[in-house]
């Protein structure tokens, strides 16, 4: 059976949730947030996960080695608000065994 990993996600209210996510479902961080209802529907993953809206912007707070940002992600973050150095689009971070223990905080809604 494929490995499940644990993620620590701090929601927009500042509450941290420990969640388990499967690594064999091609899920991304934005979808994990939606699956666990950690942000109201309609405020995250608005474009569906195409790196076209930045509603899933998250701040990565652990030192995991993450996949490089695609041109689409970089372009979208350049037009997003509240961007920090550790900003990533949740929809572009796929749940893989390497991300076990990842700590992220959801960026404010904009």
């Amino acid at each position, binding site marked *: 059976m494929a490995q499940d990993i644990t993620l620590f996600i701090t929601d927009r209210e500042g509450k941290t949730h420990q969640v388990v996510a499967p690594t064999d479902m091609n899920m991304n961080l934005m979808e994990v947030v939606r699956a666990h209802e950690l942000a*109201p529907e309609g405020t995250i993953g608005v474009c569906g996960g195409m790196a076209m809206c930045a509603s899933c912007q998250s701040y990565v707070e652990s030192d995991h080695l993450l996949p490089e940002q695609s041109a689409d992600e970089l372009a979208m973050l350049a037009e997003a608000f509240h961007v920090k150095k550790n900003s990533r689009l949740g929809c572009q971070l796929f749940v893989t065994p390497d991300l076990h223990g990842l700590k992220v905080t959801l960026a404010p809604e904009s």
Partner: protein
Amino acid sequence: MIIGAGPTGLFTVFEAGLLKLKCHLIDALPQPGGQCSEIYPKKPIYDIPAYPEILAGDLTEKLMEQIAPFSPGFTLGERAETLEKQEDGTFIVTTDQGTQHRAPIVAIAGGLGSFEPRKPPIENLVQYESKGVAYFIKNPEQYRNQHVVIAGGGDSALDWSIFLSDVAASVTLVHRRNEFRGALDSVEKVQELKNQGKIRLITPGEVVGLEGEGALSGVRLQAEQGLITLDCDAFIPLFGLAPKLGPIAHWGLEIEKNAIKVDNSLDYQTNIPGVYAIGDVNTYPGKLKLILCGFHEATLMCQSAYKRIYPERRYVMKYTTVGGVEGFDGTKKEAPKAVIKSID
């Protein structure tokens, strides 16, 4: 009356048309297609039945072609603001521009809501709205001989910089990096105009504050050389559009999870009889926000709407392979008659 001209709203016209019901669509966007045309027209969709792959923009075009025989009316670029039930049971929907439509049935196919401009988090931005700050350019002439600052890195920021470079006294384009995601032609054109001194480009740069007594007189920019102030008459942040449920949330409809609750076991009607919600805008146990689910919901909703309008009539659904498609425009599509030949 259909609120929202995305794929679900458009397909509703077809299903209603088969039942001889004529539709009018209202949408805040200036073109039909909803998210498909506004956010991802060039993205392929793989789960439309019988289309192994279709671009979102092409899906919109195909739907427009499919519903053309039913001559739908369109009120585009206007946001539905209010819904009022009349004594005779009909509804009047009024748009933000005061246009009114009356119909016996309202189908809300509003997707995630109407598209609103994304406003950058600049402290006193709202204070200068319509005093120099604008998120849309409705009348480019108003910027003639003005000093204009545009912010953004997509097509609208590029296209309007190009257009206004011929109208305004000066155009400054500010973007957080020097790569732009707009169409290549536009990027090249901006480069050319920059070389000619017709557009001033500030990258990386970000507008962080606004100045002016009453009306806008300048913007504060965080640029490579530090914080600078730039005198200007207009600041136009163009960071795209994001859907917001908007006025629909105040129509007395039962809202749950930013969506309208409907009776999915029956007909997708809301808590207001005669008002239906279909597609991404609704919610019910097991809801999936998929275009194909929107099509199904539209189909069932139209049957229910017909029964509401004609309670005394008995009707059974007719297959298009049997009944063909009889348009309101006089066209008729039908299966060719079988040719019967005898063998001597």
